[in-house]
Each structure stands twice: as C-alpha cells, then as structure tokens.
C-alpha cells in the first residue's frame, strides 16, 4: 500500500499524473514536465515535498551528537541557519544526505529523504544510544505529523509574503539557507530559503493539517505571476541541470560524499565524526572514481541511469556509468551525471555514452550544467 501525503486530494483535483516514488504515491506532473520545469526557471513552481522526513533533535547534547553523526560542521550554524550535510556510515558511504537547521540554540530540525526516513532514524537512534553524553539529546521522528511544500522560482520572493500578512518579518528578507517562524492564519510554520532547483526559492514546513490551506493560498498568491503546480518529473530535471545529487543515484551507502563531489560539505578539520577515517584517507589519496557532469554532443536519445560511459577513443573497459540522465528542458539536449575514473572527470574531456549499443559522443562539463542567466 503506497503512502499518500496530506495533499493527495489537492493533486487529484489538479488532475495530477500520479506515480510511485520511494513507497509514496506522488505527482509526476500536472500539465507536463517541460512546462512545469520552465515555469520554475522563469516564474514560480509549487511542489509537494510532504513525503520528506523531519526529525527534531534537542537538548544540551544535541549539537555535539549531530556534529559526530553528520559530515558538515554544525558549530557554524547560528540560530536560524541551515546547512546541507551528509549522514555517513563507518566506511564513508552515505546513509543519506539532508538539511539540518538550528531552530534554537539547542534545537535542530533534520529534513531527510522520504525513502530513508526509517533507515536514518534507526541509524541515528542506535548511535545516540552509545554516544558519550547521548542522554543529553532527544531525537524525535516528526515525519508523520509534519508536511511541507517547496515554492521555487525567480518570482516567488515577490508574492510569498502575501501568505503571511500577520508575520512580523518578511520571507523576502530571509538570507539563503536561513529558516524562521512565520504566522500563517494564526498558526506557526517554518519557512526556509532553500530548494532543490537552482532557483531562488523557499521551503515551508507546517503541521499536516495546515498544508492544504497553505498550498491553495500559495497557488492564489502566485497566480498573477504564473505559478504552476510542479511534480517530481520537473523536480528531477531541475536538480539534474544544476547537478544536485539525488540519493540512490549520486549517493548511496557505497558512494562517499567525496566521490560525489561534495567535499565542501565534509568538515574534515572539525574533529572526529562518523566515517572520518575513510574520508580523510580518500581526501589524501584521491578517490577511485569521481562524479562528473556531461552534455551530449548532439540532440538524440537522452542518457539514462546505468548507461556506460566510455573514452572517446573506445577502449575495452568503460570509464564509468551514468547515475542520472535526462533531456534538459532548459538546454534542449541530453545531460547527465556519472561516476567516472578520475582521469575522465575534468571539464572538456571528450567521452561517449553507450545508448542501447551505440556510442554517442558527449563532453564532460563544469558543474552546474545549467546556470541561471
């Protein structure tokens, strides 16, 4: 039985094309993936991200425990700030990638991938139980009681505050990666200036019971600016264009954040943390494979996850494989991400992607593949 978010009825009302995603029945698209993608790049798009998980960590020992469990340095976070970070296993592989926010001095919110909620929570619980001073931190899975939407695009900041007339601050003034409490119709919601599209945008976390009213209010507030409900299809093409990793593709328990090109989010200098020994060794010696972005040389069949990547002059062994691939709606050509041997990872390396037995020429390019004009 697939799980449904509190916005399921709203999706049906909009005629969503529903698909299974990580155990959830979610909208793939409403009007069409390309149309929704372009709405986000030029105006505004509204995504249901209620399937994602939320954990609350609080107490005097919470920061210390999270700084051990996660790769980024949580001490950099002031109250009201968030950071992208990775939950690693002992081998430096990624249990998940997530956002952590410092809501208050001793209170944190973790936003995790839908398909990893159970794995993450039991992993964190298990390590909290044996962490020295772990008794001074409390961890709660709030995924069922909370829902969330992402509202993304260059025009969002201009209308978002119409949804929060009673708030003392404005969302438009929120710095990137910051989070704050806003008043929505007398209830408190959390608004962060974050997203997964490469555009300016916000994510809003609210009690499940409030989310449909918030969804409708956002669609109404953005109507004049051309807001569109957008599904997982556009979410995937948008994030691929800007080379954000998707768990299960660019990261998994056997792929380290350094292999995935996420070294910026691994604070090797902060002291000991889970996976540090392996990650420090990878940093010193280099990894056996590296994530690279590529663009097909000509329009044609788009690259897909699992396709092999080859040296432009052939060879008997593949250089690597595609982890994410699609047709870029912004560039109108096939694009993708892949794990390749390090010598193939520099930009402007000519490669070939095997599409059903044919080697189609492609070029490794600098990340992100698409940059907003």
């Amino acid at each position, binding site marked *: 039985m697939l799980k449904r978010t509190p916005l399921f009825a709203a999706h049906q009302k909009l005629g969503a094309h529903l698909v299974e995603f990580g155990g959830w029945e979610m909208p793939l698209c409403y009007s069409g993936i390309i149309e929704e993608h372009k709405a986000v790049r030029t105006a505004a798009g509204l995504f249901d991200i209620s399937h994602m998980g939320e954990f609350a960590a609080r107490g005097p020992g919470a920061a210390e425990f999270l700084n051990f469990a996660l790769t980024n340095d949580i001490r950099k976070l002031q109250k009201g700030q968030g950071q992208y970070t990775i939950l690693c296993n002992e081998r430096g592989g990624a249990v998940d990638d997530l956002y952590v926010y410092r809501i208050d001095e001793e209170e944190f919110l973790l936003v995790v991938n839908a398909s990893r909620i159970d794995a993450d929570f039991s992993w964190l619980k298990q390590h909290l139980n044996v962490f020295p001073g772990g008794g001074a931190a409390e961890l709660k899975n709030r995924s069922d009681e909370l829902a969330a939407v992402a509202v993304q695009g260059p025009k969002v900041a201009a209308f978002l505050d119409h949804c929060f007339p009673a708030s003392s601050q404005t969302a438009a003034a929120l710095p990137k990666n910051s989070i704050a409490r806003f008043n929505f119709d007398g209830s408190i919601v959390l608004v962060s200036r974050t997203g997964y599209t490469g555009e300016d945008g916000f994510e809003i976390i609210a009690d499940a019971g409030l989310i449909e009213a918030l969804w409708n209010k956002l669609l109404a507030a953005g109507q004049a600016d051309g807001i569109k409900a957008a599904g997982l299809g556009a979410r995937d093409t948008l994030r691929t264009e800007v080379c954000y990793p998707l768990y299960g593709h660019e990261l998994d328990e056997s792929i380290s954040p350094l292999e995935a090109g996420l070294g910026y989010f691994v604070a090797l200098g902060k002291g000991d943390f889970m996976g540090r020994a392996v990650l420090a060794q990878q940093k010193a010696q280099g990894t056996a494979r590296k994530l690279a972005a590529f663009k097909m040389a000509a329009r044609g069949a788009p690259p*897909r996850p699992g396709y092999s990547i080859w040296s432009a002059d052939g060879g008997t062994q593949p250089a690597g494989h595609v982890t994410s691939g*699609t047709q870029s709606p912004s560039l109108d050509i096939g694009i993708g991400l892949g794990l390749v041997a390090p010598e193939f990872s520099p930009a402007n390396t000519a490669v070939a992607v095997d599409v059903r037995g044919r080697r189609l020429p492609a070029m490794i390019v600098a990340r992100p593949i698409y940059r907003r004009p």
Partner: protein
Amino acid sequence: MSENVPADLKYAKSHEWVRLEGSAAIIGISDHAQHELTDVVFVELPAAGRKVAAGEACAVVESVKTASDIYSPLSGEVVAVNAELAKHPELVNSDPYKAGWLFKLNLSQPGEAGQLLTAESYAKQIAP
C-alpha cells in the same frame, strides 16, 4: 481523464495503434500511452526496409522521464517512417493518431490483424 480511443483503429495490448490500409498498416502509440510517457523528446525509428515480426521491439520513444520500447503489432517490412519526428518528437504527444504516427508496414501476414484489439476492448484495458 477522458481517454481518446478512435473507433476506426485497432490496438495492441502494449498500447500501439494500427491503421489498416489494404495490405499496409500505419502504426503509432495511443493517446493513453503518450500521456503515461509524458513529454516525448526523441523517437528512434526502424530503418526503411527492415523486416519486423509481430511483437518485435523496433522503435524507442524517449520521454523526459524514460525510454520505452515500441513493439510492432504486426509482421511486415518497414516502408516509411515519420521523418517529422526527428525535428518535432512532441507530435507524439500533441497528435498521437495523426501527425505523431511512427512507421508504416507492408504486411507479410495480414491475417494477424484479426488478433488485434478493437477500440472497445482497448478502452476497457486502459480504464482506470
């Protein structure tokens, strides 16, 4: 969702449609299929002259989301393909039964057509 299933066509369970014209047949994918695939961005068609057997994968329709094999509903020789799709693959979405056709066969075993689905039975198959 109201499904568009023209009554004058025959259908395969795998969502191709067939327009019979004497001993030839024009083949495409149904409105239901294009909707399931979402935005089509590339179509790989068989070479003219290729002989295909009923049920053989002989074309690929690529959407933003995924690549899907297209199976020839009947046996025969490919005598024409829709060259417009190279420039305008989105015709498969916007006009699946006319401008979005895929290829044309000269049938080697016209009798096979009797095993295709009528519009009525195909509509039943795709009913939610």
